[in-house]
């Protein structure tokens, strides 16, 4: 870890392809040793951002720093300290998976041979097969093994699990946890909320090439309301007057509503008086947060758009 500079520091990043603006004012910050989630729908600019960080695309505006250096000017030197897994892995059809791993991992600097053997075993990948015969998942494993067997300080992962089965996803999760425990920084672009919630401390949500939300996951959650469904002995309509209960919906003896987390103690006390028989409380999920930013009209409350779990 060379310096105290953040692993990634991007502000006001802009990139145009012809007349379409892929990025227009994107901010992203990943501290050293942090696992950061990077969420956004297709075409929102996640891959473009990562490609700019890799010096493959030249930014049209804003600033980007990676490991304290300029991603365009210092690309080659930086890439010895960085490993990358693309969402769509393309391999040389007549080389074996093992050969591709050697080629890619050597390009990411020093290779840990013991780790490579371990990872091949963990991901259950046969390195002697020609890449032509690999499925999408197996091609992705090649890129993952190459990236994880390097000693890179920063891992840039662009939807790295889109072709993996749940078992392999679990292997991936534990590998990333291990990398984080070693003090490496990770940028994980993903569609899978559960994965990001499991792994990431911070999350940046982008839309149309712009950052719309970012911060520590715990704090972002705090901004959201808890969703409660309760079945009571008495008339649930009486709950309407309780301070803190909003968006109340009734169905027989069952009531669903949302609560501001700060007002939860008072609401629970009031509920107790109605002899609840069954109570389900769902913490605000990342999915709610995400959907809030992507639904047509951001002004609508989350629950009205089916964010309930």
């Amino acid at each position, binding site marked *: 870890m060379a310096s105290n500079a953040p692993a990634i520091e991007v502000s006001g990043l802009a990139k145009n392809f012809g007349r379409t603006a892929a990025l227009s004012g994107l901010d992203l910050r990943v501290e050293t040793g942090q696992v950061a989630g990077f969420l956004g729908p297709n075409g929102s600019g996640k891959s473009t951002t990562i490609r700019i960080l890799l010096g*493959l695309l030249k930014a049209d505006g804003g600033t980007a720093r990676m490991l304290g250096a300029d991603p365009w000017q210092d690309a080659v030197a930086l890439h010895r300290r960085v490993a990358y897994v693309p969402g769509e892995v393309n391999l040389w059809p007549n080389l*074996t998976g*093992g050969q591709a791993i050697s*080629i890619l991992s050597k390009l990411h600097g020093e290779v840990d041979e013991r780790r490579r053997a371990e990872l091949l075993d963990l991901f259950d990948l046969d390195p002697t097969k020609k890449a032509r*015969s690999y499925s999408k998942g197996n091609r992705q494993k090649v*890129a993952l093994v190459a990236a994880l067997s390097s000693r890179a300080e920063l891992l840039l992962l662009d939807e790295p699990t889109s072709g993996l089965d749940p078992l392999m996803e679990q292997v991936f999760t534990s590998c990333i946890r291990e990398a984080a425990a070693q003090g490496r920084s990770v940028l994980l672009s993903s569609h899978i909320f559960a994965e990001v919630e499991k792994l990431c401390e911070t999350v940046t949500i982008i839309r149309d090439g712009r950052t719309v939300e970012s911060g520590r996951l715990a704090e972002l959650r705090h901004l959201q309301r808890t969703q409660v469904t309760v079945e009571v002995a008495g008339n649930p309509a009486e709950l309407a007057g309780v301070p803190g209960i909003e968006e109340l919906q009734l169905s027989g003896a069952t009531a669903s509503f949302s609560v501001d987390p700060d007002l939860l103690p008072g609401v629970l006390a009031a509920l107790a008086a109605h002899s609840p028989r069954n109570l389900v409380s769902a913490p605000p999920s990342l999915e709610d947060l995400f959907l809030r930013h992507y639904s047509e009209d951001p002004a609508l409350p989350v629950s009205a758009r089916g964010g309930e779990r």
Partner: protein
Amino acid sequence: MSTGTARRRTPAEHAQRHAAAARGTGTLTGVGTAALFILRRNWLRLAIWALVLASMIPVVYDSQQQAFPTQAARDAYAQVANTPAVAAMTGLPYAAGSLGGILVIKIWMTLAVALAFAVVFLVTRNGRADEEAGRTELLRSTALGRHAYPSANYLVSAALCLATGLLISLLCLSVELPATGSWVMGASIAGTGLAFIGLAAICGQLASTSRGANSLGVALIGLFYFIRAAADLQAEGVNPSAASWFSPIGWAQNMRAFGEDNWWPLLALASLGLAGCLLALRLESTRDLRAGLLPERRGPAAAGSFTTTALGLALRLQRSSLIGWFLGAAVSGLFFGSVAQAMSSLLDPENPFARNFVGTGHSMLDGVLGIFVLFNALLAGAFAIQCLGAARSEEESGRLEQQLAGSLARGTWLGAHLLIAVLGSGVILLLGGYLTGAASQGSAAPALLAGACLAFWPAVLSLLGLQLLAFGYVPRFTTAIAWAAYGISVMAAMFGGLFSLSEDVIRATPFGAIPRMPAEDFSWAPLAVLLLISLVLGAAGMGRFNRRDVLAN
């Protein structure tokens, strides 16, 4: 599958059709439907193969009639036709004193081998390739007999052979060649195709990938071609050697169209085809869908340290292509050398066509050698463009992105690909030139011709320079621009005179600018100018590539 039915079928009608199909329960149920389906997917491909191959007959016949207008000219040709090079390349010449015989010498082998390639690709395309892609699985889940689809595949390929043969025979008859010979001509070419359907069918059972099946099939064509070449070289006079019976191409040759007109080898060819198809169907019953009888080849579990370098990887990716081009340059060099003498004595110096083609050089022999030097340069140019084109396909496929995400400088990566194109084209020029000289039986010194070829290096480099410029500024059009520039240069250098282009215009194209030794005198100026152009274009392209976005599709 129905062609051009305007209205949609109701579900009830569908069920009826299915019930009708299900009435058959044999392994061949549905073979007719399958054949129609294959025809529908391939009709254009089939039509192009048949028409292009058959149309060679009138084209070649016309040119030969002009080259040998009188019986005296044909008799003179017959005296010199039987050279080892002709015997090895196009088959043992016989009946060279007749137009039919000359037609066989000039085009029979090309047509027969081309049809063999056509059926190998066709059988694989509708067989192993479909199976590999999972389409066969889908078809087999319907009421289609196990052998229906492959049988239909073999039948359609056989139909291509018969149609091509028939067209060839009819075109031979249309130019009033002898009737029996015309029919044997078509039948012997169709027969070659039929035999290779059987062989290709077996290849499709052995390999588990379409690439593997095609490689096996092409290897068999090569093997049988070389067996018959060796046999034809051993032949005494115009009588075929017994060794030619070890190759189905040899069987077809021994039908001797416009010569003895033997019919019976056709039976052997058709039998080989039928036996191959039956064996393939049998083998198919013994294996699982998608499996091949040959185990899939495994490779090393890790790359050697050289392969992980930019140059090492580029070389590894180009390995088979490089070997192919070098072999091609060697074979064509040997061929050119061995026919140079004979060709120059045959060409009439008073013929304006020949003059235009060979140029106004020192002598006819030097003119012919100059043409061969140019051919070799064109070969080197095509190699160079294809070789550097690999750089663009690495970018297009997204594989470049993964390499540049590692600690690899853009210049190093592009430099590695460029180096192989530059040095590889130099090797082709030297190799082709040297072997032309070595095989010329003393007509020209090998070192001299190697030098004459190498003089074309700056022409090749200038095309590479243009390709680099395109790669830097308009990457999406790199391939199109490079090949268009190559095509225009080739046309200008080879046929510029015939199209009455002025000398100045021809001299302004890469291949036209270089003095064509030994027919012309050497001068440094055009080489230096082309070299300078190459450097400027190349440097501009490379510089731009270092500054532009890397774009995958």
